[in-house]
């Protein structure tokens, strides 16, 4: 069950923005004080894939995500976003563990922020922000301020803000980790439905192997720092996933290898 509201004009047959391919080659990142975090990491993510990234705390998942977003530069190797031939420059969106909204703005203007920074006019960006808010089921809360929202609602505003530019790649760093289990499952459902609908590339960092398997088509488990890929596996579950899947034996079977790799990664 999902409270997703499909916005008009975003039906399944509407044109899709599509995703970009992520190509990480021998990426190296060293921090003064904490040493080598990434040491020759290779990763290739096909355009439009939903990938979950797992690994021990401090192994370099956020570092990798920041490199992909261009918020940080690699000390060696390369991190590239490859748009399909003829497509425009990749649009990147990033969702943090906390919602990080601007508390002085209402929900609508928070969701419209990326468009505002891109120079889109006021009426236009508000209309698009409203569509994005409806996509996450928050069309009614547009005039409220963040302080008046629950944690789950704030996170959905954050998601709407990320989606408002129709990103070709969506990076999420433990986005729902601070929420209660039920809210989190509901947001997982919404996120997956949005991905099926919009077709962007998604890199999703999480500490929960259940969340990873439920959401992604492909799961990658990293070792302790410096991060190496311990497991890189497709998730063979149906495209349409619902809450009932969580108690399905197929689902439990998909979790096994992830759990083993995570345990192996924790070990010294």
């Amino acid at each position: 069950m999902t409270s997703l509201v499909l916005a008009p004009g975003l039906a399944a047959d509407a044109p899709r923005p599509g995703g970009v391919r992520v190509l990480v080659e021998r990426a190296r990142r060293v921090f003064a004080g904490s040493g080598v975090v990434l040491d020759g990491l290779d990763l290739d993510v096909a355009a439009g894939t939903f990938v979950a990234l797992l690994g021990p705390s401090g192994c370099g998942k956020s570092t990798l995500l920041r490199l992909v977003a261009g918020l940080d530069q690699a000390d060696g190797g390369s991190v590239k976003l490859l748009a399909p031939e003829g497509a425009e420059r990749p649009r990147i969106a990033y969702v943090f563990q906390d919602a990080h909204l601007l508390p002085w703005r209402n929900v609508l203007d928070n969701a419209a922020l990326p468009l505002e920074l891109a120079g889109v006019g006021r009426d236009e960006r508000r209309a698009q922000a409203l569509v994005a808010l409806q996509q996450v089921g928050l069309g009614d809360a547009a005039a409220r301020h963040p302080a008046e929202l629950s944690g789950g609602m704030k996170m959905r505003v954050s998601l709407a803000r990320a989606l408002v530019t129709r990103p070709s790649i969506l990076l999420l760093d433990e986005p729902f980790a601070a929420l209660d289990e039920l809210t989190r499952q509901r947001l997982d459902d919404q996120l997956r439905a949005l991905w099926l609908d919009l077709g962007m590339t998604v890199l999703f960092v999480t500490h929960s192997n259940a969340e990873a398997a439920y959401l992604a088509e492909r799961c990658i488990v990293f070792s302790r720092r410096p991060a190496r890929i311990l497991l890189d596996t497709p998730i063979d579950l149906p495209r349409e996933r619902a809450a009932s899947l969580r108690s399905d034996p197929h689902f439990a079977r998909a979790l096994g290898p992830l759990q083993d790799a995570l345990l192996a990664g924790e070990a010294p």
Partner: protein
Amino acid sequence: MKTSLAAAAPPLLSLVLLLGAWEALVRVLAVPAYLLPPPSQIAAAFAADATTLGLATWTTAKSALLGFALSGVIGVLVAVALSASRLLERAFYPYAVFLQTVPIVAIAPLLVLWFGPGERAVSVSAFIVSVFPVVANALSGLRSVEPALRDLFRLYGAGKLRTLLLLSLPSSLPSIVTGLRIAGGLAVIGAIVGEFVAGFAEGTPGLGILIMSAPRQLRTDLLFAAVLCASALGLGLFGATNLGGWLLLRRWHPSEKS
């Protein structure tokens, strides 16, 4: 209503007791009025010299407000400049701190020299005394903008000016308001001290002049009345910044949620 009455009762009661005791002691011990006038005489001075006091308060208020406004604008601008670069901050912040420690009475004669006696020098004195808390608080606000939000603005290609206007300044507003709150009271002090030294010019004398001249005429009652006017002015400015801060921040900042 009842609760606010209950909250106001204790301080009001203690005030009445204090004034009563003061009045009684001065009368019983026959203290000369030029040393310590009874409250009733101070009240009478308020009535008798209402125009003088009112005009003096207005003169001082103008200088204090001008100094306060200068502090607000220049203080925030300086903080923005210092926050723009670590180098600038390292080069100039120590002098801002130094300026803060220079006693205003000591440089007031210099202000007369530079700006001539009168309201201009007085306003500058109010400014010098009140600008530092604005700089310090605004700077700390600008420095503590959430890194994730900075990243977000960077991700969407926002330039320096837009980041300043749409992110850094609004998110340091609570700190700036805190700085202004402190600056309000200080500006009144700076104006009065400025008037001690630089207030003798044409036009209506301010509270500082009144405070200086009243004892010479053995009008201690008028002195008390002028001091009360000065406190009321400081309180008024404090109240106004509080109200302004509340209006600006009530929708979003936890410090303003009742």
